[in-house]
């Protein structure tokens, strides 16, 4: 129970009997009945007094004797229109002026037999609003609307019997016939609502504003029901008074009921009994009337009291102490203070409320309030038993010790904490973002900004780390992963590491290390888990995936931790360096190559082939290296094995040997032909002198030393077909015309073995081979310089041998010559034709005289330079050129 109101006596022991009371502003009027049954009207003003026990007193302002001939039973003041209305016991309705206190006639005729009336007064903003009165005249409801200083009757509604009571509700009227309430709209349609109750003789209704909505409170016995402006109940449950109220008034946030033996004060929204003033005990009086405007008055037949609200601050304090937080919030709105003070007060109430709700296990609502007042998350998290270290928890000043809870309650509470933290996380991230943007735009770092950034960072650290613990507590495995993977998470490394380890969330721990840049820890862990049972961390692939995403800035780590993978599973391990991912492609290749050379030399071919073929690497060193690796592999391993296996039988063609050797050689040969980036100068000396002649020929060819290359084919390999094939490949009419001549030369004047630069046991010095030379000459004569060949031919060649060649060459030369003749004739004819037409065009004569005008500017041509069009038109040369320029522009 609170102490919301004091009761102060204003008028004491009036010799006359009060029969009606009304109040406006700080004034009130009482109507009394004299011994002669006439109505006297007394007007008072409420003023504060210095008396501590009676802070207010009423000063009698005016006494109007014999105001009406009969006693007044109902009074109503409309201060904005300086008007008051009175109904007397004989059923006469009076309008009076509030300044002159004279009864005036303003449009309402003298009505006899009225039983009651109701005023509908809309105070609209910046405008006087409108005023309507409904007067009950026997079985009629007469509606008068006030406009321009007078009342006009606007409705005349008929009802079955004379209503006891009327009241306005929205665009309709509530009235009571016998014990039943009805609602009638102004068009006359009505419906029955409900009964006023068995134990109630008089109806009791009260129009109120709840927020910005008009409502009507209606009593059914001791139950109070709220109706909206269409007379429909608005709340599921009714307020129940402790006795049947005679009358009620509304003083936000309270509703005050005048009960037979007491005045009861209740919170309207919470329906809670706040205070009960036992009238018969406390003031020893029987109150009968209650009125409310700026002041609230209750009156008995001889006394008037003021209901004085206690200071709102005190009320709020009391509410908080008795844990009536909702009411405290409502009352705190009424305190006159600055917005910031109000905000602080509200926060303080909410803080206590939230804690109270938490102790009652209403977690959702509690956390909602904590979020609203932006409570330090440390305090909120401290309400839970296990998220903060206990010594730290004890250091925080909590209102009282936090509740203990377990099992389902704890789980539920944790779920709501997750929601709270998620929301808070979002808000703090936004704050951080805004702060960072602000800091970026400032030229200098301000200490305030740095301080607030520190604070936000600390909060986010706490939020994320606690969120992780919540996820673990509630077994939310998917979200654990999501949180640790977030690139911008604010998890505390040590603490998160501890909880993840305790819960054996090793995969998530690796991911945490990854987002926190602790790659060494992550990779060491992956290594230690790789041999474990079949889990997400076993095997080489977790490490491979990890290394593939590290990027070139971590190359040393990649190299270090790829070592065991390459040794354990080279075929998978090479993927660390060859996966089609941007990061992998960007790794420094020479380092990788050197590393592979140390750890797994066999993988170098695969790596080089990948970077050259897939990633189109053109670095000469890599191309050279690949050639040398192929070569070494062939010479040191595969070739000796092969030679051993054939035991002196003839060798297969290069690249067609069985097994690996053939494969390697064909790749090497193909690469030597297709790659444009290797450097043959350095390579050639590394090749053996007694084998791999095919490869050597290609290298020599690349060096432009075609004679030696061809000599290798012709004399060492004794394969004229390959030599011809070589010529076909390398012949180019512009760049390399002499290659066929070189081929002939090698047959006619063979070089020595020494010239060729090989050393092979049992090789015979090359010998002249005129026949082959002649065949080549005959086949490729058109690509060979005839004159040069003639010089080469040895003197002992018989004419018979070269007859065929010479005839063909002569025939072909004749064809060329004749063609040239024909072409010459045709071109001469064309030349003559053109000359002829030129002469024709130059022949015409024309006269330019004083009357010859320019076609373009229409001025005289005179002696200026001119242009003549093919149709004979003439123009200034200048005009003509301008015209041409214009056309070009278009």
């Amino acid at each position, binding site marked *: 129970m609170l102490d919301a109101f004091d009761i102060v006596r204003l008028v004491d022991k009036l010799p006359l009997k009060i029969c009606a009371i009304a109040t406006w502003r700080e004034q009130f009027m009482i109507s009394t009945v004299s011994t002669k049954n006439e109505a006297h009207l007394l007007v008072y003003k409420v003023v504060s007094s210095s008396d501590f026990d009676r802070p207010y007193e009423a000063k009698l302002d005016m006494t109007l004797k014999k105001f009406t001939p009969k006693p007044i039973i109902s009074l109503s003041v409309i201060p904005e229109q300086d008007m008051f209305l009175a109904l007397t016991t004989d059923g006469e309705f009076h309008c009076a002026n509030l300044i002159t206190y004279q009864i005036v006639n303003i449009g309402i005729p003298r009505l006899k037999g009225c039983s009651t009336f109701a005023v509908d007064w809309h105070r609209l903003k910046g405008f006087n609003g409108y005023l309507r009165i409904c007067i009950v005249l026997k079985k009629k409801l007469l509606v008068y609307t006030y406009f321009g200083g007078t009342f006009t009757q606007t409705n005349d509604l008929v009802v079955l019997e004379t209503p006891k009571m009327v009241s306005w509700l929205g665009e309709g009227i509530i009235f009571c016939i016998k014990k039943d309430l009805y609602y009638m709209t102004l068009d006359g349609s009505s419906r029955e609502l409900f009964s006023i109750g068995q134990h109630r003789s008089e109806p009791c209704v009260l129009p109120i504003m709840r927020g910005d909505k008009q409502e009507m409170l209606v009593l059914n016995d001791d139950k109070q029901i709220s109706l909206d402006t269409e007379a429909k109940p608005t709340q599921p449950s009714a307020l129940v008074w402790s006795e049947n109220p005679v009358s009620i008034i509304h003083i936000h946030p309270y509703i005050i009921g005048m009960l037979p033996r007491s005045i009861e004060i209740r919170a309207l929204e919470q329906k809670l009994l706040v205070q009960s003033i036992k009238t018969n005990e406390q003031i020893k009086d029987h109150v009968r009337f209650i009125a409310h405007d700026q002041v609230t008055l209750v009156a008995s037949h001889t006394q008037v009291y003021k209901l004085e609200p206690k200071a709102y601050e005190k009320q709020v304090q009391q509410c908080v102490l008795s844990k009536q937080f909702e009411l405290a919030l409502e009352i705190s709105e009424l305190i006159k203070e600055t917005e910031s003070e109000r905000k602080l007060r509200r926060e303080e109430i909410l803080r206590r409320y939230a804690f109270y709700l938490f102790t009652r296990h209403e977690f959702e609502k509690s956390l909602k309030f904590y979020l609203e007042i932006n409570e330090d998350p440390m305090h909120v998290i401290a309400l839970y038993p296990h998220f903060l270290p206990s010594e730290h928890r004890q250091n925080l000043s909590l209102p009282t010790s936090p509740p203990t809870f377990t099992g389902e309650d704890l789980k539920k509470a944790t779920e709501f904490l997750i929601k709270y933290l998620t929301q808070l996380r979002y808000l703090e991230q936004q704050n951080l973002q805004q702060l960072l943007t602000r800091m970026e735009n400032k030229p200098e770092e301000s200490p305030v900004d740095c301080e607030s950034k520190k604070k936000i960072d600390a909060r986010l650290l706490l939020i994320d780390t606690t969120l992780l613990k919540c996820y673990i507590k509630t077994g939310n495995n998917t979200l654990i992963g*999501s949180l640790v993977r977030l690139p911008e998470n604010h998890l505390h490394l040590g603490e998160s590491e501890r909880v993840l380890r305790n819960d054996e969330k090793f995969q998530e721990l690796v991911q945490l290390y990854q987002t926190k840049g602790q790659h060494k820890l992550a990779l060491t862990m992956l290594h230690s888990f790789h041999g474990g049972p079949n889990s997400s961390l076993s095997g080489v692939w977790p490490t491979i995936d990890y290394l593939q995403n590290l990027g070139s800035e971590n190359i040393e780590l990649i190299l270090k931790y790829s070592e065991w993978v390459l040794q354990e599973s080279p075929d998978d391990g090479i993927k660390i360096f060859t996966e089609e991912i*941007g990061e992998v492609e960007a790794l420094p290749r020479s380092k990788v190559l050197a590393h592979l050379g140390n750890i797994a030399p066999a993988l170098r071919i695969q790596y080089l082939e990948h970077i050259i073929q897939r990633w189109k690497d053109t670095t000469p060193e890599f191309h050279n290296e690949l050639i040398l690796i192929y070569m070494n592999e062939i010479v040191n391993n595969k070739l000796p094995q092969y030679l051993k296996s054939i035991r002196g039988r003839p060798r297969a063609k290069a690249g067609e040997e069985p097994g690996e050797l053939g494969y390697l050689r064909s790749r090497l040969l193909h690469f030597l032909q297709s790659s444009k980036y290797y450097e043959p100068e350095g390579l050639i000396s590394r090749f053996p002198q007694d084998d791999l002649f095919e490869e050597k020929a290609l290298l020599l060819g690349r060096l432009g030393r075609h004679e030696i290359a061809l000599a290798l084919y012709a004399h060492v390999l004794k394969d004229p077909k390959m030599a011809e094939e070589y010529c076909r490949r390398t012949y180019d009419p512009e760049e390399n015309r002499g290659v066929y001549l070189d081929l002939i030369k090698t047959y006619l004047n063979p070089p020595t073995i020494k010239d060729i630069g090989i050393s092979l046991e049992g090789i015979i010095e090359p010998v002249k081979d005129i026949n082959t030379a002649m065949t080549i000459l005959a086949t490729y004569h058109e690509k060979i310089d005839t004159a040069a060949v003639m010089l080469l031919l040895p003197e002992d060649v018989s004419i018979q041998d070269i007859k065929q060649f010479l005839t063909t060459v002569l025939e072909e030369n004749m064809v060329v010559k004749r063609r040239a003749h024909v072409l010459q004739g045709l071109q001469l004819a064309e030349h003559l034709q053109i000359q002829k037409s030129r002469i024709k065009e130059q022949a015409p004569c024309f006269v330019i005289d004083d009357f010859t005008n320019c076609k373009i500017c229409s001025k005289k041509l005179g002696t200026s330079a001119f242009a003549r069009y093919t149709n004979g038109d003439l123009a200034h040369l200048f005009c003509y050129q301008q015209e041409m320029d214009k056309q070009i522009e278009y």
Partner: protein
Amino acid sequence: MSARRKVLLKVIILGDSGVGKTSLMNQYVNKKFTSQYKATIGADFLTKEVMVDDRLVTMQIWDTAGQERFQSLGVAFYRGADCCVLVYDVTNANTFKTLDSWRDEFLIQASPRDPENFPFVVIGNKIDLENRQVPARRAQNWCESKNNIPYYETSAKEAVNVDQAFQKIARDALAKENDDIYKPQVASVPDIRLDSNTKQKSGKCC
């Protein structure tokens, strides 16, 4: 037949800026494509009514801005989503790499009841372009590793596979709705409607 109430499915499209989220939505709802790029600000939605197994459902497709990851849209926006569509651009490997973050961030913000089985759909867009960077196999592997997320490759420009992808989205979202027995029936349905084509039809269902 109590389940015959009108169903509204909230679908959220996420992904880096410029991957074609707006284009996909426009292609699906309006059958239109423009090659002009205009950044989305905040979030915007279109609705479309579709039939899923004889049921008429309204898809409310939320298109989001890709620039600022989760800065302007609150936690409330993500709660109540029935399906989350993750979009990347097959010609831009970075947009694929960030899918992880988009998914993780979504899950944390939305905190769905069953995050393991929350319906996602991944769309690799712009397959009409030539300079593809992300192999389909890599995307499929990723989807498989995330509890078998359905994967579609589309071209919003040439309307390839767009309808199929959204049909799957509607189906999965509806399945999730039906599972969510706790879900309040009207929560998360905003009052505002941006386009007039989606007025509730008054026609009676047989």
